[in-house]
Structures are given as structure tokens and as C-alpha cells.
């Protein structure tokens, strides 16, 4: 099937969604997505950030679709023409969507551990308005500990349902879900039952915001001061192949996450043993530094090259300086 997105034609399988067709082209025309997750069945359709305009329905029925459609849920038709960044209507709508997502989202990025790799932060930076028109108090919740490794900050949640799908599809039984309706909806385990499963840690990775965070990494460091390194280990857990990213600060592994692709989606889910218990370099086989986009804040102040020595090492001088230092500090 042939579809045209922003004037770029692409040949896709029938049944592909517009979002995935755009991802096959790649680049700027890919609509952003907060709730759609390619590894999770049935995800998408909740956040509306991927809205696009269909200016020609199909070859048979060339009428445009009356409203903007969610590209993660709409499958392509032969000869469909889609406008994303070329349509001012879409850009305007997306700005509104970001404003709605940020209605109840606290602006506590300086505290949040997700800052620097947060999808909502990127979305707000790229598509949002500088100010909100919302005048009321944001809803607040107490933070909840889901088990001893995962923390839930319900105030930051944007109700994308990704963690619910993860728990449903990756783990064998889920204990958490959405309670209440509409504006009162909240992710909860009901009477704060602990999520206890070998793959429960993946809800941290799929969360696009800082609502579900790693308690072992809590306030340890900012993401952009750590250095991501690709590594793997022989994981004996079936379903986990042990391919991860280690986040180093100096010699220390501060946290372990699954490897994420360019859309912030994990390549493969990892088990809790890999994520929480193996935090020594000796546990891992290092593959090399992770490629970080030069637009990401994570790449700032990280130099690929080894800088040339500024001062020639002179052992005699170093010895003399040490003596001098000792003499001075003794006084």
C-alpha cells in the first residue's frame, strides 16, 4: 500500500498504522507519541499527541477525514495522504494537547529523576507553549512505594496506561491498574499491594514521565552526569537476554535500564535481577559506550576524545610539590 506522509511516499504492509508508516520514513515527520508503545499490544490512543491530518482518505474515497486522527490507532489505506508537520492545524492541536497533558503534571523537573530523558519534557520543549492558562491547583497524591524497588509518584502520571499493559502482557499476573474515572483516575495497586514479579521493573522503563521511578537510583545523580554504557550478561531467567544499558558515574554503576531505541521504547524487556541486583562492573560484559544523540542533554559535557595532556608529567616536580604541600598543611 502506498501512503504519502508530508509529501514523502512510502510503501507499507496493509494494516500498518500511520504512525508506524511515518516511522518507516523516519526523521522530523514522525509524530510524537506518549502512550503508544510498539512492544505492547493495544497501547495507544490515549494521549492524542500523535494527531495528524488525513487530507485524502484513500484512492477509492479521496474525501479528507473530517477531524484530526490519532495516527497510532488509524491504519493506512491505499493512496492515503497524511499531513503532519506541514499542517498548521496539527501543530496548533498538538500545542493544545501538550497544554492538557501538563494541566495536572507538576513542574518539579528539578527534583524529578526522569528529567533529561523524559518524553513529556521533550514534547513540551518541542511542541508546547511557554505558559499555561490553567489557574487551579494541580491534583496531588502521596507517593506510594510499590515494593521496595519501585516508587510511584501519582502526581506526575499522565495516564498513558503503558505500565498497565506492561504488567498485563509481560508479567504473568498484574496487581495494579487504574482506579476511578475521568479526572479522578489514578494508577494504583489497591491497598498498596506490592507488585512482586520478575519483570515488574519494566514499568519504570515504559513510563514516559517520572511517575514510576527506580528507588535504588532515587536522587543518586542527574541523568546527564552519568555515562551510559552498553553491556550484557548471561541471564538465566527465561525471557530475559540480559542486554542492558549501565549508567556509570565514575567507576560506579548507578542504575541499570533496558536499551532504548530512538523513540524511547525499550528494545527488549529485562528481568529484575539484571535491573536491581547486578550493579557491579564485574557482573557485566561491557560492549562499549552508548550512542547518545547530540541533541540530548545526556551527551553534554561528555567528550568522546581523549584530550591532549596540558602539563608534561615530571616525577621530580610532582615529588617536590607533594613535599611542599605536606609542609604547608602541617603548618
Amino acid at each position, binding site marked *: 500500500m502506498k501512503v504519502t506522509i508530508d509529501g514523502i511516499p512510502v510503501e507499507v504492509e496493509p494494516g500498518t498504522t500511520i504512525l508506524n508508516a511515518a516511522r518507516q520514513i523516519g526523521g522530523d515527520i514522525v509524530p510524537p507519541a506518549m502512550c503508544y508503545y510498539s512492544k505492547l499490544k493495544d497501547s495507544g490512543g490515549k494521549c492524542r499527541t500523535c494527531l495528524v491530518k488525513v487530507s485524502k482518505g484513500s484512492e477509492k474515497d479521496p474525501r479528507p477525514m473530517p477531524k484530526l486522527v490519532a495516527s497510532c490507532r488509524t491504519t493506512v489505506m491505499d493512496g492515503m495522504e497524511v499531513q503532519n508537520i506541514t499542517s498548521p492545524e496539527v501543530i496548533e492541536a498538538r500545542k493544545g494537547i501538550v497544554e492538557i497533558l501538563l494541566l495536572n503534571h507538576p513542574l*518539579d523537573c*528539578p*527534583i524529578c529523576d526522569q*528529567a533529561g530523558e523524559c518524553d513529556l519534557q521533550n514534547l513540551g520543549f518541542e511542541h508546547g507553549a511557554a505558559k499555561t492558562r490553567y489557574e487551579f491547583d494541580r491534583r496531588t497524591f502521596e507517593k506510594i512505594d510499590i515494593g521496595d524497588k519501585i516508587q510511584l509518584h501519582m502526581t506526575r502520571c499522565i495516564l498513558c496506561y503503558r505500565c498497565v499493559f506492561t504488567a498485563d502482557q509481560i508479567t504473568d499476573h498484574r496487581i495494579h491498574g487504574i482506579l476511578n474515572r475521568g479526572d479522578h483516575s489514578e494508577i494504583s495497586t489497591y491497598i498498596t499491594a506490592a507488585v512482586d514479579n520478575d519483570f515488574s521493573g519494566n514499568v519504570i522503563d515504559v513510563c514516559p514521565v517520572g511517575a514510576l521511578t527506580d528507588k535504588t537510583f532515587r*536522587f543518586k545523580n*542527574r541523568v546527564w552526569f552519568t555515562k551510559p554504557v552498553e553491556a550484557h550478561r548471561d541471564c538465566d531467567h527465561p525471557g530475559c537476554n540480559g542486554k542492558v544499558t549501565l549508567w556509570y558515574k565514575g567507576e560506579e554503576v548507578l542504575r541499570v535500564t533496558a536499551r532504548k531505541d530512538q523513540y524511547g521504547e525499550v528494545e527488549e524487556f529485562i528481568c529484575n535481577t539484571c535491573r536491581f541486583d547486578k550493579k557491579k562492573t564485574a557482573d557485566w560484559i561491557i560492549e562499549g559506550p552508548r550512542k547518545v544523540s547530540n541533541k540530548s542533554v545526556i551527551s553534554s559535557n561528555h567528550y568522546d576524545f581523549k584530550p591532549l595532556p596540558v602539563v608534561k608529567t615530571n616525577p621530580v616536580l610532582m615529588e617536590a610539590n607533594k613535599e611542599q604541600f605536606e609542609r604547608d*598543611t602541617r603548618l
Partner: protein
Amino acid sequence: MESLTNKRKLIESKPLNFLERAYLPAIAQGLAITMKHFFRKPVTISYPEEKREYSENFRGMHSLKRDENGKERCTACGLCALSCPAEAITMIAAERQKGEEHLYREEKYAAVYEINMLRCIFCGLCEEACPKEAIYLDGPHVPSDYLRKDFIYGKDKLVEAPLNQ
């Protein structure tokens, strides 16, 4: 040959007369100039007891601010360290415990906050980056010292004194 500018002056050197040869009038003249300066306003000041007026946008030593209730504003977000072109700032964050609400404004705070004053170039980017209005370069000049290690300023030197003291 004609000169280019017609500004050339011919100096004739005459032999010194008696008074000039005696040197005493010249010494008196010189002393008079010296004496005259005794009664003038001195051009120097005795720093650091006395200080000149600074420009309003002078950037001196950093100070970590407190809010109106005396709580520390800094939440250890790391943006100052990120923006610092000289990489002079380091920090370690910690979580606020129960009962410390009167000390720190947010749930995270800087347990260790260090600025290497030898690295700092006083550009003010940390001040600009700070989302919490916690750091300002409003202090005096950084005083001199003998050892490099004494130029690493911790929270004891940087944080403002509490209000009620």
C-alpha cells in the same frame, strides 16, 4: 631638505646658569610638589577595610539563598553544574527526611555543594540556569589563600546565614 610637517623645532642647548647649577632651587621645587600631594585626597584606598562602590552587575562570590521562611532553596537539580563552562560545581543530592521540612524547601536538597573558586570564571551562567533562584553571585571578591584545597568552597561558606540570627 624640507621637513614633511613643518613642525620641526630646533633646540639650542645652552650651558646651565648659576642657579641651575646650584640644584637647590630644583630640589625645593621638587619638594614643593611632594608637599602639595600631602594635602590632596589620596587616589588609593586601604582595601579590604575600605571598599569602593561596586557596579550593580558585579559578580563576586556565590551565595546559596534561603526563602522567606529560612529554608534552603537549592534542590540539587544540577543545572548550574551542567551550565558551568569551567566545570567548577559539584553536588551530591539527598532526600529530605521527616522533620527537616523547616530546613529545605523541596523534597530533595544538596547534601554536598562545592564550588572550586580557582576554576570558576564568574560568568554567571549558574545564576541564569538556576530554576529555583537559589544561587546568586552577589558576594564580595573571593579572598586569597595559600592552598588550593582551601579554594573549594562547601556549603558552610556558600549558604546564606539564617534569617533569625
